[in-house]
């Protein structure tokens, strides 16, 4: 029923990122940096969902995600599902979760933080609270709001 409604072909091999928070899809597509890779990507925005009301979906053909990419998705849309598709069926299904510590993924928004000024320093954000999401820099303790996230 949903497939008919969406008019988007199921993919043979690749990744389907489902249950994205409505509005997060474009941002996530941007950080996945799919331009120039040659993979076919479809983005569905504001898809009706019985659980979420509205959701976004991204389908990427012939590519599976790295751990760092999964962490980025979790930061922007915790609870999204990453489905690995092999030969038209779901081979793996995981709900993405923000790890307790996210290293080398996003800058601390404090420009005077040592992590933004020291050569070789790796930014680290700590998960202070899961619901609602609250992150803080492991170095300067600055609280990081979602809209402040600047991915490396």
């Amino acid at each position, binding site marked *: 029923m949903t497939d008919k409604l969406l008019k988007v072909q199921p993919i043979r091999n690749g990744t389907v990122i489902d249950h994205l928070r409505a509005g997060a899809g474009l941002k996530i597509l941007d950080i996945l940096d799919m331009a120039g890779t040659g993979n076919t990507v479809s983005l569905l925005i504001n898809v009706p969902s019985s659980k979420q009301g509205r959701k976004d979906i991204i389908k990427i053909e012939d590519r599976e995600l790295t751990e760092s990419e999964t962490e980025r998705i979790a930061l922007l849309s915790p609870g999204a599902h990453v489905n690995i598709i092999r030969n038209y069926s779901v081979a793996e299904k995981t709900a993405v979760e923000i790890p307790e510590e996210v290293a080398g993924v996003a800058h601390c928004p404090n420009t005077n*933080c*040592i992590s933004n000024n*020291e050569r070789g*320093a790796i930014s680290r954000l700590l998960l202070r609270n899961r619901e609602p999401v609250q992150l803080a820099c492991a170095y*300067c*303790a600055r609280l990081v709001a979602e809209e402040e996230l600047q991915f490396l």
Partner: protein
Amino acid sequence: MDHVVTIQDLANDDIVSVLDRARELLPVAHGDKRNDVLAGKILATCFFEPSTRTRLSFETAMHRLGGNVIGFADPSATSHLKGETLADAVRMVAGYADAIVLRHPQEGSAQLAAEISEVPVINGGDGAGQHPTQTLLDLFTIREEVGKLEGLTVGLLGDLRYGRTVHSLAAALARYDTTMHFIAPKSLAMPRRVTTELPDGWSAHAALDGILPELDLLYVTRIQKERFPDPEDYARVAGAYTISAEILRDAKPTLRILHPLPRVDEIATDVDGTDHAAYFRQAFNGVPVRMALLEMLLGSD
């Protein structure tokens, strides 16, 4: 306790131990008694940013306990300007000393150093971030001057926005069931990131009027000229927050006034001779408190 990066690194029991030990060490801090508990130990004071009180009181504390000090007070004399990273500098110094005191202009620098150093790192101030030993000496001074820490009514006055001292102090006082009054011009009010971490029992005010008679303690900070684009605004605001002997007629006789120093004119000199003035004793208290902390980190038992 390995490193002291923020006041949150110290449990309530650690704080009590430091304050109790600092009191025992007072005669040594004054030079009336000898103590060589840290003989043979070396403290490195690495000051990438100028500071007089913090550096000198750490050095005095180390010398009074029989230890030695190496370090620098001016980063222009080091490899920092040649582009050496803080991490490399810390690795090097950790090989030369038994503990490091670090003052650095960037927030989070002490945390970075603590992750790299094999010897204890004490944060001597990281940018606008933390300055835990200042908080410890403030707590020590309050306890010595007022007699207790629990259940006091405390006013924090002046620049509450940029002053890292008052941020850490407010967080620490929250552990002791303190009623806190934040008195500041609107543009220099206590930031929300600090107040959201506090339990109920605080309030913000534009002026000291009406609050002063309730206070057991008034903590005054300097309002910096640089914070105001218009010098006239500065003059008006600074004038409105000046404490004088005249104003203090409404205060409890037991009220004590603290100030992290240096002061400019936010406390008139006519207050210095009153019983309220505790800020010079507060500056001295940096020595016994830092002695207690160094002994805890470096002492053999």
